[in-house]
């Protein structure tokens, strides 16, 4: 099954199960969604449940908040992360805070989904990542699906939960293939050990997990060691237990993310480990991330601006050699 099909299946199942579930967003209805995640839902459940909205992101999220107050379970789609900036007031001032400010009187069972990241030459206004910002907002659960099976189960979980979730996808993952084990629901807050290893813990999420895996043979062969690769899956809360166990074993941490390095999401992981596991580390932690520039259109420059399997391998190998891995 493809990643986008897994997401579609998750939505289809929860919509079949609970008529309070509605999806809304630009072109999610008749058109079936820009990345086909909501394909078929309007035909099956009607336009009242697969709602085409105008191009008004503030309202998409703001309306979803109100629908949730009114007893529905809205799943809002923002076409691309960059447009979510228009909805930051609703996400941060409303969706994340109503429950707390009302001392629990208001409950917001809702999900906001969006794809993000560098795709293929979409340029600076269509290529950004905002987990750095959004995973820092108290009151939100933030999941990031890199894996097909995880995508299916985590999205179902998010829709059926009574808490407000952000569900982050990556534009280059929609056609990724994988198996879905429908009968084994998983804990969406648990990190996924993609590969076990002994010498280095490489932490990542979303598309970078695949790039790390692509870089791995070269890294392991060159350094003559085995690496443990962890997909965070949940960006808030973070499964620090899994990280801790891994780093206790490996004593080394590499954090890989696609977003600009300055202030990027990985800084939090690295700083938390530095604070809490300082003495367990045998080498300085390494952060591999995008360059601190808006994403350029030209393909070469674009690739230069983000980590790739090659640049990941290169960086880890250089660091490994320097620090006797």
């Amino acid at each position, binding site marked *: 099954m493809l990643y986008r099909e897994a997401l579609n299946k998750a939505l289809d199942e929860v919509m079949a199960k609970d008529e309070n579930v*509605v999806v809304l967003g630009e072109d999610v209805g008749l058109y079936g969604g820009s990345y086909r995640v909501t394909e078929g839902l309007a035909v099956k459940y009607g336009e009242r449940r697969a709602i085409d909205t105008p191009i008004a992101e503030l309202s998409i999220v703001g309306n979803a*908040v109100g629908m949730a107050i009114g007893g529905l379970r809205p799943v809002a789609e923002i076409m691309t992360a960059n447009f979510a900036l228009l909805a930051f007031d609703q996400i941060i001032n409303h969706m994340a805070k109503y*429950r707390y400010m009302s001392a629990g009187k208001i409950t917001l069972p809702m999900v906001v989904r969006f794809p993000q990241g560098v795709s293929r030459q979409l340029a600076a206004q269509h290529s950004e990542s905002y987990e750095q910002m959004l995973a820092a907002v108290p009151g939100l659960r933030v999941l990031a699906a890199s894996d097909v099976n995880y995508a299916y189960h985590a999205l179902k979980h998010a829709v059926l939960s009574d*808490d407000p979730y952000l569900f982050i996808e990556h534009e280059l993952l929609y056609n990724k293939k994988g198996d879905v084990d429908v009968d084994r629901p998983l804990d969406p807050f648990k990190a996924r050990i993609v590969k076990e290893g002994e010498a280095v813990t490489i932490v990542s999420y979303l598309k970078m997990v695949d790039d790390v895996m692509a870089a791995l043979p070269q890294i392991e062969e060159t350094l003559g060691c085995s690496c443990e690769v962890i997909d965070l899956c949940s960006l808030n809360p973070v499964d620090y237990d899994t990280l801790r166990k891994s780093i206790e074993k490996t004593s080394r941490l590499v954090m890989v993310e696609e977003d600009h390095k300055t202030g990027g999401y990985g800084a939090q992981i690295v700083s938390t480990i530095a604070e809490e596991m300082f003495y367990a580390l045998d080498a300085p932690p390494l952060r591999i991330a995008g360059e601190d520039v808006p994403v350029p259109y030209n393909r070469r420059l674009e690739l230069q601006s983000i980590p790739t399997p090659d640049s990941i391998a290169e960086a880890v190998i250089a660091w490994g050699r320097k620090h006797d891995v």
Partner: protein
Amino acid sequence: MDKQLAEEIYFEMVRGRAFEYAAKEHYMKGEISGFLHLDIGQEALSVAAMKAFGKGDVFSTYREHIMAMVRGISPNAVMAELFGKAEGVSEGKGGSMHLFDPSHYFYGGDAIVGGHIPNAVGCAYARKYQGEESGVMVVFGDGATNGGAFFESLNIASAQKLPLLFLCENNEYAIGTNITRVSPFKKQSKKAEPYMPTLEVDGMDAVAVHKVITDAKAYLEKGHGPIFIEAMTCRYEGHSMSDANAYRSAQEMAQCKARDPIEKMKHYLETVYEMDETVIAQIESQAQQEVDAAVAFASEAPEPAPEALYAHMFVEGGNHALS
């Protein structure tokens, strides 16, 4: 309007004003803090609109103490919230600007100008979806009508024919800025005209407000879509306790107070129902007693426990199914 309703409205207006003056007093004493926005001068609107709207859902702003009480939240719980106490309606976490109580169909209490309007639109969608006839009312100021959230909401509510009543409390000011300096219009209903029927009402006249909201509610229930009501009103105090109100002349203030809504309602009771001084005095003293009781309650109520800091972040065990 029948006598009992008129008396109730009068009572709520008097109690509302007494409540606000009490809040002001205790703010100056340092027992209430943060931003405190008083509704004095606008009581006709807050009271009569809520009364008329019956059980429909209401979304409002930071200037919402009186509305919250008319909806049924007790003065004790509102005052305790202003005092930041554990027995406040938001357990001391929200304060004056964030009063919520879904059991009374009251959803705040939002302090982002215009930010609650898209929420009201979404709720109206839910009500239509559920086949509920009661509809939704969203209350906002003139200043909110210049923001994108308001406009997007007019458009969506109209396109979707949602049962939503837009109630604009036009007191002509957004803090210190007169509306005509930043909007091409004095009457903001101009902005809604392309999208839905608009009505105007004297926001200082509780009887008129009650009538127009009653009519509007009937319109909503017919499923024709949204409706816009503009109520011209006037606040007596500064925008919040930190505003000295220096931008309005004595003359402007006098004109404003000459339209006093409580006096007007009293006059109505006296002329239409020949209500006498004693009854009116009784209503007033009952109102004051309730406010005094609320202050006493709030003063004595306990502070939230330190653990409250971490409470209400997420729903625990909130998944109704995982499979």
